[in-house]
């Protein structure tokens, strides 16, 4: 391995000056821009969370006043949802990998891709400035009439920020759909595409069909505030429930924007580290599309106690349970892929296994919530908070980190330190569960969300949760340190350190600017790992030794 070297020319060293980054149209560089920005936003949202978890250590409001507390959870929710989780995997890993996985030189519209990053940054910075500088305390859901009549006027600036960033989502989704349809390499049929691409495709459907509805909802809020047009104002004959319908019509699908791309990452990691073909390829592929479609039919489950009609509640309850079916199909298929696989527990796999377990808990509690009678009891309690954090943090953030570790060698050409990777994955898992499991109990016992003063008897569980949050926060810092360290000192990875299948592994790491020296021709299906019995594996298989170039299966075998 001493002979290993980075390729001489690749996308990172093609050009060095600042403008070559800020005006780049290379999808890989844009992915890196997104990665840096998202890390920043994640940090901002995280600081807010640490602050309010500190406040919640005691039942009294002794660290911050209610006003500040409300601003903190608004900051946290808005930043984490709109400026971290929604773009996370599509904008970083999707941007970087989607063209490579289908054998294209770039996305279909590289300039729109760059524009999407600028829109995202403009929107994000504006929203943060509005919340921190002006103070917005509506929560990430900005329900009317609070947001239109009573909250302070910075709501407009925040809404504008989210509105602008929405167009970045739309452009990303549009780009992905068009690229998948028109840019596939010869031989790359729909059913040979990696499941990652299917997942991004399904997510993109939600991006393009859902985000415009958020845009018009935000525009209406702004008009309502500015001109008092009255559509959501009952005093003028408007209907505040209409706002909730429009908001959740986008925001429920948006939760699947967060989890579908994660599922897509898991579908890549599991076969690679189990050395097996994915079980039920078509089921996994179509379940992504099924989730995307069904996700548009369930929004009313956020409104069971809002006064919507009983029949609407029943229908939404039914569809919500239905959406659990394709989600479960995926879990079963990953599990079946693991069965009798040759499993190695490297960092990406640890994250993937963590995802499967935590997503299952999050998804099953979702089914509890979809049962109207239970929801009446736990609506707007910490039970809800625990439910969605199991999916969004236990699921989506874990999947994001898993994916970052899995493709880190491809993006940078170097390996991260495996031992540290495993340690931090375990710390994150423990910290996560300690933070959020007590919240299920708190919510079930009746502690409402979004208050900073609570009854004495809830203190023990709250202290547990805050303790967990500090472990979790610490866990997130470790990768930040060693990933940066590895940029200079990490071992040279070589083109395919995991012995994985897929076109992205056929090109040097880091890849050249146009990804492939020659357009690849695809002749086999995805995940064509050889049947296990034919391949005697060395003991230390994969864990430490990068597979040398010659040992790789040639694409055209």
């Amino acid at each position: 391995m001493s002979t290993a070297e980075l390729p001489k020319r690749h996308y990172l060293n093609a050009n060095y000056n600042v403008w070559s980054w800020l005006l780049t149209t290379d999808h890989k560089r844009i992915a890196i821009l997104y990665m840096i920005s998202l890390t920043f936003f994640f940090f901002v949202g995280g600081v807010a969370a640490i602050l309010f978890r500190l406040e919640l250590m005691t039942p009294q409001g002794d660290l911050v006043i209610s006003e500040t507390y409300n601003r903190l959870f608004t900051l946290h929710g808005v930043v984490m949802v709109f400026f971290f989780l929604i773009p996370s995997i599509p904008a970083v890993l999707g941007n970087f990998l989607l063209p490579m996985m289908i054998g294209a030189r770039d996305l279909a519209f590289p300039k729109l891709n760059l524009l999407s990053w600028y829109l995202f940054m403009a929107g994000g910075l504006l929203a943060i400035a509005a919340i921190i500088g002006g103070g917005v305390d509506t929560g990430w859901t900005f329900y009317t009439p609070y947001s239109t009549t009573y909250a302070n006027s910075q709501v407009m600036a925040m809404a504008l920020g989210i509105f602008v960033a929405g167009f970045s989502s739309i452009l990303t989704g549009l780009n992905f759909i068009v690229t998948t349809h028109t840019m596939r390499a010869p031989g790359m049929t729909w059913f040979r595409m990696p499941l990652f691409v299917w997942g991004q495709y399904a997510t993109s459907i939600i991006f393009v069909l859902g985000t415009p509805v958020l845009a018009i909802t935000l525009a209406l809020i702004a008009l309502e505030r500015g001109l008092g047009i009255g559509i959501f104002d009952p005093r003028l004959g408007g209907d505040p429930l209409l706002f909730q319908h429009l908001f959740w019509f986008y925001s429920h699908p948006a939760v699947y924007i967060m989890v579908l791309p994660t599922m897509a990452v898991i579908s890549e990691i599991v076969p690679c580290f189990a050395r097996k073909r994915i079980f039920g390829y078509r089921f996994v592929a179509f379940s992504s599309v099924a989730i995307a479609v069904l996700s548009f039919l369930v929004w009313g489950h956020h409104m069971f106690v809002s006064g919507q009609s009983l029949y609407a509640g029943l229908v939404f309850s039914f569809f919500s349970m239905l959406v659990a079916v394709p989600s479960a199909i995926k879990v079963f298929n990953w599990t079946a892929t693991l069965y009798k696989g040759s499993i190695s527990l490297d960092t990406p796999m640890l994250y993937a296994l963590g995802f499967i377990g935590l997503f299952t808990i999050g998804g099953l509690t979702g089914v509890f919530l979809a049962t109207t009678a239970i929801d009446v009891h736990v609506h707007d309690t910490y039970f809800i908070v625990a439910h969605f954090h199991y999916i969004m943090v236990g699921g989506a953030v874990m999947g994001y980190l898993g994916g970052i570790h899995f493709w880190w060698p491809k993006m940078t050409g170097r390996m991260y330190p495996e031992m540290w990777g495993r340690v931090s994955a375990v710390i994150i898992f423990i910290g996560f569960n300690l933070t959020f499991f007590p919240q299920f109990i708190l919510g079930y016992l009746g502690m409402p969300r979004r208050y900073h003063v609570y009854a004495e008897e809830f203190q023990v569980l709250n202290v547990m949760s805050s303790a967990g949050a500090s472990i979790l926060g610490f866990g997130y810092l470790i990768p930040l340190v060693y990933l940066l360290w590895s940029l200079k000192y990490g071992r040279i990875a070589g083109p395919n350190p995991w012995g994985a299948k897929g076109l992205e592994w056929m090109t040097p790491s880091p890849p050249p600017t146009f990804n492939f020296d020659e357009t690849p021709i695809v002749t086999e299906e995805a995940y064509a790992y050889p049947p296990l019995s034919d391949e005697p594996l060395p003991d230390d298989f994969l864990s430490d030794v990068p597979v040398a170039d010659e040992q790789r299966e040639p694409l055209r075998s």
Partner: protein
Amino acid sequence: MSTANTHVAHHYDDAEQQFDAARLGMWIFLATEVMFFGGMFTGYTTCRFMYPAAFAEGSSHMQLLAGTLNTAVLLLSSLTMALAVRSVQVNRPAVAVRLLMVTLVLGFVFLGIKGYEYATKFAEHHVPGAAFSLGEAHNPAVNPQHVELFFAFYFLLTGFHALHMLIGVTIVAIVAVQTWRGQFSSAYFTPLEITGLYWHFVDIVWVFLFPLLYLIH
């Protein structure tokens, strides 16, 4: 390199792939537009359902003649747009330029009539806000506040539509100049084609707005 190939960006294999991508991209963009207007239509439908009489009253204050005229103007402009694309496809750019000019003029006529309608509404105090007054109601039983809601939707929907028209005439003007400079031929006319798609879309939105706002009493 042949003339067609000079338009192919580096990451495409050939002109056909690039054309397909651009056209699909436009269709998807139009899908997002459908959802954008869909949100407003949903709001309109909800409120109309709550206050049918007030909304009928609101409709009766529309200027039917102006609306009908505008419908005709837009439909005609869609025809000239389609013919312009067709002319370039059969390599008659000079005809195409003239047709695009007609499209442009029709677009401005539409906006002019719309502006006239808005001005009348201002004069009649039909703009929602502090100065709103219904004046003489055809149906005295309705709550003027609910009629105001109708007018809010009227300005919202037609306002966003007019904004799309403004963007539309700008783009049509640009492609008209490009056509006049001879940039398009049967080998390459992607910008013209997708401008056409956009124009027809804006037209279709109006085809929905017209009956919803002017015709249902």
